[in-house]
């Protein structure tokens, strides 16, 4: 009996690597300390009522951001482990199998569990405030989206210590990801982790499209909407058409692995190339999904900190919508080398180059916004200014990659690695950092320390170029991606060492950001104005952090940058064009425990499917259906905040001024 348990535990838990034992210990310690702190301070009830069951978009946004920063830490540690392994030739720090697992989890975590939730966090915090709404269109669904993402991410991350991580690359190409080549449970963790959180992403896409189309403040026309909200709309349109492709592709892979189907297998009429084709139909739009909101953030910041209206508003809107549609027509450029012939490659090379046009339009719009503006160099603006040259270089190397014949040389080399890190870090990560710094006072009511922020900024930026510029040359020297070891005579040693140093500089930059947040929580002054940056859009017209109902009376919008125009009128001594509105009871959604419970059930079911243990899968799925039924028959889902309470809250918030 004991032997059997030992044998089972040996398969079930990942063993044999000191790094994993270290992770086991740190996970156990973290769990114990969280439980101890919550129990000691008697905070379980608070956690449940105020956070786990909340449907408030602002709190959901904060939870998304906390989760994504944790994931950034894990993905970053993965990156540094890899960079350590290939810093010099012939290093034996990570075994090749372990290296495979780490580059796989690094990619999945950074895109799906870091960039996506950070983006959704900013959507949640900013969009309703920016368009003058009191919540998103479907608050219950919003909470469900978050918890589906969270438990999907937890399921995926669990593979690190239980059962074994996936190791077939971040897109799990077939046939490597098929049962014949990856018999372990790692791939099943990949499929279920992504499927469960994917449902959440799709729901968020739908939620924000409806919010933006239906819930704008009275008078706000689409063409007066702040640019960040436009970027969210374009990103969400892409989400709702791209994510179903991912879901179907992974479902087919699951059928192959679980039921022995032959969609992507090597035998039985399967076609692994079809997997590559399908996954990139999602994979390419996906990168535009994460970068479009970053473009929106830059547009907001560049206008605010140049004290000028955004240059070329209409062209910016058209550029974004064109990018979101064109992103569906370029997917083959990820596999030019598959060999579909000159016609096919030429078509997709041209569509890829076309995307550079609207992107170029946007770069000029940002530059012309700054032209003759009164620029303030606060941290959000510094990230924005650093983004422009970085993204332009990344974009140009992208155009080089889009030349199909040349791509046969660049394909899967470090040139490609350098290119996509340049657009994803220089475009997406810089943008989200800028957005975090910019909207932080709106979330928490105080700014982040500028001095530490500037240290973090320079470490990240210098580190970035030191890390990725050498990789372009390594790629041209023939170093391919995913190699875990190389010999001295390849001549890649010096550039790799430089690149690793850059990687660690970015790691130190991240530590500075953590320090910056901790320091600011303790020492920064409260912002009592609600408008610390002299902003232009509606989110700055209310106190920070915003009250539960956001707007005591709904704003009446007449202009683009309505809040700014109103402030200008007041500064010029003109009367405000706004008529004071009478307070009315505010209709709000009630908190609900169903999203949390339902996501736990999905987690249990997913775990069961991963190990093929029906004893978990069946109760989990039954739990999911019970939650669906419970929601369908609950009618008591909303309430009204009485006028008295609004008056008290407003007096307390605005009284400080």
């Amino acid at each position, binding site marked *: 009996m004991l032997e059997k348990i030992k044998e089972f535990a040996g398969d079930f838990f990942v063993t044999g690597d000191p790094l994993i034992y270290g992770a086991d210990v740190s996970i156990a310690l973290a769990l114990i300390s969280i439980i101890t702190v919550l129990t000691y301070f008697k905070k379980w009830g608070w956690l449940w009522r105020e956070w786990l069951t909340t449907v408030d978009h602002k709190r959901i946004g904060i939870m998304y951001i906390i989760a994504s920063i944790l994931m950034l830490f894990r993905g970053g540690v993965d990156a540094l482990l890899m960079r350590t392994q290939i810093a010099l030739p012939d290093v034996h720090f990570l075994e090749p199998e372990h290296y495979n697992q780490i580059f796989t989890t690094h990619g999945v975590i950074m895109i799906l569990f870091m960039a996506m939730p950070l983006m959704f966090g900013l959507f949640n915090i900013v969009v309703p405030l920016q368009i003058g709404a009191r919540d998103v269109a479907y608050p219950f669904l919003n909470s469900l989206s978050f918890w589906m993402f969270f438990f999907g991410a937890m399921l995926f991350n669990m593979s690190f210590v239980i059962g074994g991580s996936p190791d077939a690359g971040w897109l799990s190409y077939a046939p490597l990801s098929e049962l014949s080549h990856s018999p372990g449970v790692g791939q099943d963790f990949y499929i279920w982790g992504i499927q469960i959180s994917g449902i959440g992403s799709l729901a968020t896409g739908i939620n924000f499209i409806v919010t933006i189309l239906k819930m704008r403040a009275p008078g706000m026309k689409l063409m007066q909407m702040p640019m960040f909200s436009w970027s969210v709309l374009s990103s969400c349109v892409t989400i709702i058409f791209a994510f179903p492709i991912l879901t179907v592709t992974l479902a087919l892979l699951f059928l192959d692995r679980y039921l022995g189907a032959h969609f992507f297998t090597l035998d039985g009429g399967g*076609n692994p190339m079809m997997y590559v084709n399908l996954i990139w139909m999602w994979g390419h739009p996906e990168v535009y999904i994460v970068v479009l909101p970053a473009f929106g953030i830059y547009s907001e910041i560049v206008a605010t900190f140049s004290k000028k209206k955004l240059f070329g508003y209409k062209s910016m809107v058209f550029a974004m919508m064109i990018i979101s549609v064109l992103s569906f027509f370029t997917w083959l450029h990820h596999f030019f080398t598959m060999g579909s012939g000159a016609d096919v490659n030429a078509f997709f090379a041209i569509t890829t180059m076309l995307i550079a046009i609207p992107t170029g339009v946007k770069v000029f719009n940002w530059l012309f916004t700054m032209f003759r503006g009164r620029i303030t160099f606060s941290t959000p603006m510094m990230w924005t200014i650093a983004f422009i040259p970085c993204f332009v270089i990344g974009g140009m190397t992208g155009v080089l990659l889009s030349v199909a014949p040349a791509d046969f040389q660049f394909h899967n080399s470090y040139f490609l690695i350098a290119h996509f890190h340049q657009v994803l870090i220089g475009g997406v990560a810089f943008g989200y950092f800028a957005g975090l710094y910019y909207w932080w006072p709106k979330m928490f009511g105080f700014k982040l320390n500028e001095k530490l922020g500037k240290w973090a900024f320079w470490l990240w930026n210098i580190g970035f170029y030191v890390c990725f510029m050498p990789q372009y040359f390594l790629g041209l020297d023939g170093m391919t991606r995913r190699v875990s070891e190389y010999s001295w005579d390849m001549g890649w040693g010096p550039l790799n060492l430089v690149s690793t140093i850059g990687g660690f500089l970015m790691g130190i930059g991240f530590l500075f950001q953590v320090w910056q947040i901790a320091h600011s929580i303790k020492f920064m002054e409260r912002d009592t104005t609600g408008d610390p940056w002299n902003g232009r859009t509606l989110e700055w017209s209310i106190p920070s952090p915003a009250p539960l109902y956001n707007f005591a009376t709904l704003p009446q919008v007449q202009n683009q940058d309505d809040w700014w125009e109103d402030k200008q009128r007041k500064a010029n001594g003109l009367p405000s064009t706004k008529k004071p509105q009478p307070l009315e009871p505010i209709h709000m959604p009630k908190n609900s425990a169903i999203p949390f419970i339902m996501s736990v059930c999905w987690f249990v079911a997913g775990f069961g499917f991963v190990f093929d243990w029906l004893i978990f899968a069946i109760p989990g799925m039954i739990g999911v259906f019970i939650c669906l039924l419970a929601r369908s028959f609950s009618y008591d889902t909303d309430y009204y905040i009485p006028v008295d309470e609004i008056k008290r809250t407003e007096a307390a918030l605005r009284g400080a001024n």
Partner: protein
Amino acid sequence: MAQHQGGAHGHDAHGGHGSLKSYVIGFVLSIILTIIPLVLVLNDYVEGTAANVVLLVTAVLQFLVQLLFFMHLREENKPRYNLMSLLLGLLIVLTIVLGSIWIMTYNTVAH
């Protein structure tokens, strides 16, 4: 939710959610469109290309019946967001299907 009156009840306020007549017509049409291919194929009245054509045509008609009679595509007020997203969806579905066929036909590795 927070602004328009009540989630569950607000539904009625939009009005015009089809009539019994249109539902019955839609229901009958969708049944007929299901029976036609079933009978033709099960009894081997048509085979090969002809069978494929019948299946595809009835499937597309079925799709239209669903959209017009049950999804209320006709009753939408301006701006017609549902129609717009349907058209964009169709464009992308066509790209996926035709694009995949085009790519795979000339694919030297898959053969």
